[in-house]
């Protein structure tokens, strides 16, 4: 059964329609890569899934519950956000909190955990992303790669059923990309459900089991990962992959 099922998601900014009816299925344990040229609406789509943007219409089925995207209630959104997590391109760590504070903040305020309990979980997830030595560092004292790993730890701390990643390595220096991808690879191998908007084709190839290719606010091709990279059906997708290969990706 699908964990997340999207049907006919539409979104306009003013008169500009950026998402023109997107369908998507994500099963528990899936790693879905969302590919596509810039301006194709990938990020907006992802943001709609966690209600950072409000879609105009469409149906949203999560954990067996069906919602109408045009008429989401505050409690519905809060309920879905409790079970999902989001990792941003620019990390968006709380600048006034340490690494540990970033991870525990939501647990303490939103989930009403006691501080010791939250910190136990916080240390556990920071250890998991390889930051045992950095509990008390502020974001400003961490490298981009470390910041993004804190952000992933923050996402893990809430024990989500799915994590949305919005181009998690795009803001990183090339030599720091690997450490973030390794953490994501490990999560995938542990069966974490992930929806990843990315430009890292090799990551998509190795780690994802499904690929969705978007262009002009529509899904041009959705397929199993192996099939997608071996024999893409759409000419446009072949061209996209060829261009990326030529640029050494």
């Amino acid at each position, binding site marked *: 059964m699908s964990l997340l099922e999207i049907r006919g998601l539409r979104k306009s900014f003013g008169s500009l329609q950026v998402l023109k009816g997107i369908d998507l299925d994500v099963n528990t344990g899936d790693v879905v890569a969302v590919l596509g040229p810039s301006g194709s609406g990938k990020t907006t789509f992802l943001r709609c899934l966690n209600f950072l943007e409000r879609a105009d219409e469409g149906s949203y089925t999560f954990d067996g519950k069906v919602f109408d995207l045009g008429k989401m209630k505050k409690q519905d959104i809060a309920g879905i956000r409790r079970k999902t997590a989001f990792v941003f391109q*620019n990390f968006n*760590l709380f600048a*006034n909190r340490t690494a540990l504070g970033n991870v525990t903040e939501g647990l303490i305020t939103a989930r009403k955990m006691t501080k010791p309990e939250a910190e136990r979980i916080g240390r556990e997830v920071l250890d998991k992303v390889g930051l045992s030595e950095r509990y008390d560092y502020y974001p400003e004292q961490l490298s981009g790669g470390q910041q993004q790993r804190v952000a992933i730890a923050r996402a893990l701390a809430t024990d989500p059923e799915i994590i949305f990643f919005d181009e998690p390595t795009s803001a990183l220096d090339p030599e720091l990309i690997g450490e973030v991808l390794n953490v994501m690879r490990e999560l995938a191998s542990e069966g974490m459900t992930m929806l990843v908007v990315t430009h890292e084709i090799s990551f998509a190839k190795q780690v994802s089991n499904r690929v969705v290719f978007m262009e002009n606010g529509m899904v041009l091709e959705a397929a199993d990962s192996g099939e997608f990279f071996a024999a893409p059906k759409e000419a446009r997708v072949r061209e996209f992959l060829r261009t990326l290969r030529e640029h050494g990706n």
Partner: protein
Amino acid sequence: MKERWITIFLDSFWKILLPGLKLTLPLTALSFLFALIIAVMVALIQFADVKGLKQLARFYVWVIRGTPVLVQLFVVFYGLPSLGILLEPFPAAVIVFSLNEGAYASETVRAALEAVPKGQIEAGYCVGMSWLQIMRRIVLPQAMRTAFPPLSNSLIGLLKETSLAANITVAEMFMSAQRIVARTYEPLLLYLEVGLIYLFFCTILTKLQSIGERRLKTYGGTK
């Protein structure tokens, strides 16, 4: 001549400083405290884009900033009695300076709120925090750090501005100096003296500001 000056200077020093301690400083401190409360609320209302209230906040800032504080003092102290609202000089001054400073400070706080990256608010929502929790625990602490130097500036400005309260019979430092001038006919000496005492107070505030800035949590930065 010189001796007379020295005698008057020394005699009047305490007579000016004491009202400074008893009226100017409390007036400044109270007004600034209330102004900060007003400023944070007015800034948050605009930041959150609360319909209706936002227009009200803009209206308040517009009116206060567009009229002289002296006029505001006169309206409240001399004008309101005709509506049956009679205020003692000191509370009247506190009300006017709080409202006046609150309007200016709200713009400072609003700018500081806007300077906190929006992504942190989104991240807060994503970990399940409410808007108020995000403001209280993430955005405001960072904004108030940014706003600290300009707000210190406002505090120093306010301290000197309280001399206008002499016009509504608050017997603060400036009025005390005026009274001594009337008695001694030494305007140069006494106005310089009261200026010196203001300078002394402001120097202390400036020192406090730099101590405060150093002490403020820098969140790991080297600034």
